[in-house]
């Protein structure tokens, strides 16, 4: 992935430009210092008032000139820095899009399954209605005949024939089921669409008090196709957990990354769910002035050699196409840098891994958060 900016520069080109600008700035400073030195030295040798005046006027012009140049360069430097900040935000957004892209195929599968039975049931109901109306028409004819005074025997025979053909008993039993299951299917489809919408809805740049239970449930629903073949998910959210100030979008992304990692870890030790089903436990509770979210899997654990590197950007042990090594690096950046929280893990080879997120319940001010 290559990010480009207004000037069409990539992040590498931008940082190169920054270095060049800094170097130029230092060079200018040096020129000024040399000039000042020269004036000082000159002053000691030739100290006629006129000469000093002449030098000063020349100096002033040079300094004014240099100052303007410096100001201009400083502005450019500030601009470049702003762009760099923007880049970081875009990187985060890009990883989110990537995660959603990976989920898209799973979500399509989640929608296509209920779509299959809703389609079948709807055509079933349509055909059933045709037969039911045929019975009704025949019966109405008999009623009309009775009202007129005499029911011809062939009228009754006709009702019997269409009723038999319609398999009325079967329809009576199946029609309500077909409709209930279709409604259930439509509910599942709108549920997943709703979760998707809520998951990706922009949450702004300020931390806002959020219901973590809702956020976690949404994320687990969005990722369902990633875990459902390999694991069960057990949610243990403490009902007393207060609202937690988070950037909801970023928090969702962290939970998503951890759930997908957990599913992959379990998949690796169960041959893709063929030998056994694993368990992903997600708990959240208040501990002192922080909310603790724990995501535990029954996968293979993290090997000793990898433990120090899990939060490094681009560090991955997954196959090409399955992960880019950004998931945990982003999680670290979101939890530690953006929320002033902590992220850590316990792991045991052969038993699984447990990630612990701790988020402060009170939003500290910008400066307080920046200082340790």
């Amino acid at each position, binding site marked *: 992935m290559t990010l480009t900016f207004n000037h069409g520069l990539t992040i590498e080109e931008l940082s190169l430009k920054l270095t060049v600008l800094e170097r130029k700035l230092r060079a200018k400073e040096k020129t000024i210092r040399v000039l000042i030195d020269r004036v000082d030295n000159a002053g000691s040798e030739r100290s006629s008032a006129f000469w000093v005046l002449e030098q000063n006027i020349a100096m002033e012009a040079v300094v004014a000139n240099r100052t303007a140049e410096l100001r201009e360069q400083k502005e450019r430097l500030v601009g470049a820095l702003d762009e760099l900040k923007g880049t970081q935000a875009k990187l985060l957004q890009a990883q989110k899009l990537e995660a959603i892209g990976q989920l898209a*195929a799973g979500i*399509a*599968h*989640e*929608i*296509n*399954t*209920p*779509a*299959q*039975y*809703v*389609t*079948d*049931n709807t*055509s*079933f109901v349509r*055909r*059933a209605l045709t037969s039911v109306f045929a019975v009704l028409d025949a019966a109405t004819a008999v009623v009309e005949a009775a009202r007129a005074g005499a029911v011809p025997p062939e009228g009754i025979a006709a009702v019997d024939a269409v009723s038999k053909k319609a*398999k009325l008993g*079967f329809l009576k039993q*199946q029609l309500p*089921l*077909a409709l209930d*299951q279709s409604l*259930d*299917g439509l509910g599942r489809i709108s549920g997943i669409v709703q979760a998707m919408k809520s998951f990706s809805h922009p949450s702004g740049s300020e931390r806002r008090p959020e219901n973590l239970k809702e956020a976690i449930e949404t994320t687990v629903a969005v990722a369902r*196709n990633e875990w*459902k*073949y*390999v694991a069960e998910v057990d949610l243990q959210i403490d009902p007393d957990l207060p609202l937690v100030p988070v950037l909801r979008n970023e928090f969702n992304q962290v939970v998503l990354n951890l759930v997908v990692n957990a599913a992959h870890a379990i998949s690796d030790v169960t041959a*893709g*769910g*063929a030998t056994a*089903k694993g368990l992903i436990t997600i708990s959240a509770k208040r501990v002192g002035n922080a909310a603790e979210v724990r995501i535990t899997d029954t996968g293979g654990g993290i090997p000793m050699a990898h433990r120090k590197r899990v939060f490094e950007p681009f560090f991955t042990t997954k196959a090409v196409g399955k992960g880019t090594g950004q998931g945990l690096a982003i999680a670290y950046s979101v939890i530690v840098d953006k929320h002033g929280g902590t992220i850590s893990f316990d792991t045991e080879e052969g038993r699984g891994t447990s990630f612990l997120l701790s988020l402060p319940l009170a939003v500290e001010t910008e400066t307080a958060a920046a200082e340790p």
Partner: protein
Amino acid sequence: MKVLFVDDEPHVLEALQRSLFQLDVEWEPSFAGNGAAAIEALEQDAFDVIVSDMRMPGMDGAALLEHTRDKYPQIARIVLSGQTDEIAAIRAARVAHQFLVKPCGAETLRRVIERTLELSAWLNDDALRAQVGKVERLPSTPRLFAELSKLMDDDTATVDSVVRVVRQDPAMSSKLLQVVNSSFFARSSNVSDVRTAVLRLGLKTIRNLALGIGAFDAAGALANSAISVEKLQQRSLKIARLASRIATGRDDPDAAFMSGLTCDIGELIVTDPTPAEQTEPTQRAITHAKVGAFLLGLWGLPFPIVEAVSNHHTPEQNPYDRLGLPQIVWLSSCLVHGVEPDPDYLARIGASNLVTEFQGMLE
């Protein structure tokens, strides 16, 4: 006739069950909720068709269909999956004869199943059917296979260059048409020619097919020494070119080309020479035609091609006495083989005085 449906979503099976009961199908559907239950059902009953979901907990659809292929090759294998990624679709094309995409209406499903069941009636020999059922891919001529592999490594390869190579090889052409006619890629119309197939699939998918999935293979260990894949390919290409020329202005030249190219693929499948030697040559040729058509039918190639292949030695089995696709392929095959076409039948289809003209079209 028995059909086994496998899906891990009970609602899918229930909805299918009620739809099929209502449609009054003439075959008997059974249902299994997972791979293990399906395997049990397969052990207890003789099925003709299996329709399976792909993603299921425990044993997934691919593993189940592989098991079916190995133990019960005579059962036709159909995938009905909600997956939308292309890799999954072309991977399924290896173990399944056809790939259907959810949501798929019961009537479409019924049509596909009944067409598959009808095919079995064409090939009345269980042993032959089992032999065809095992086939995942056919051997290509080593020369064309190498040419295609080279193109696949070349990022600057064009559609034209790929079409030129694939179009000469019966095995690669029929595999490509299987994939493009699966409901995953198929839109409204069936595809009868390699150019449309390549354009619709795109070079990236063809790379995936060739390199990722290994859908094509050069004749080697696969080929029986009794037949030369190279000779068969060259002869088939001649028949294809002639058939397409004859069909120009009369029928669909693309379908004629494809039918001619694939009319003898049965020889690539049934390679055991012993029983063939015991039967008379004509009978053997007819059997080969039926075997090839059966495979193309299982793979979901357009029906006119399947029928033309099936009847290219027995055009009189086609209900119409005219110069249609089966007759064109029959005539082309006769002329390329240097066999005199039956004059009575030629007269019946009003083609007696055309043979000299057609002969002239042969290079």
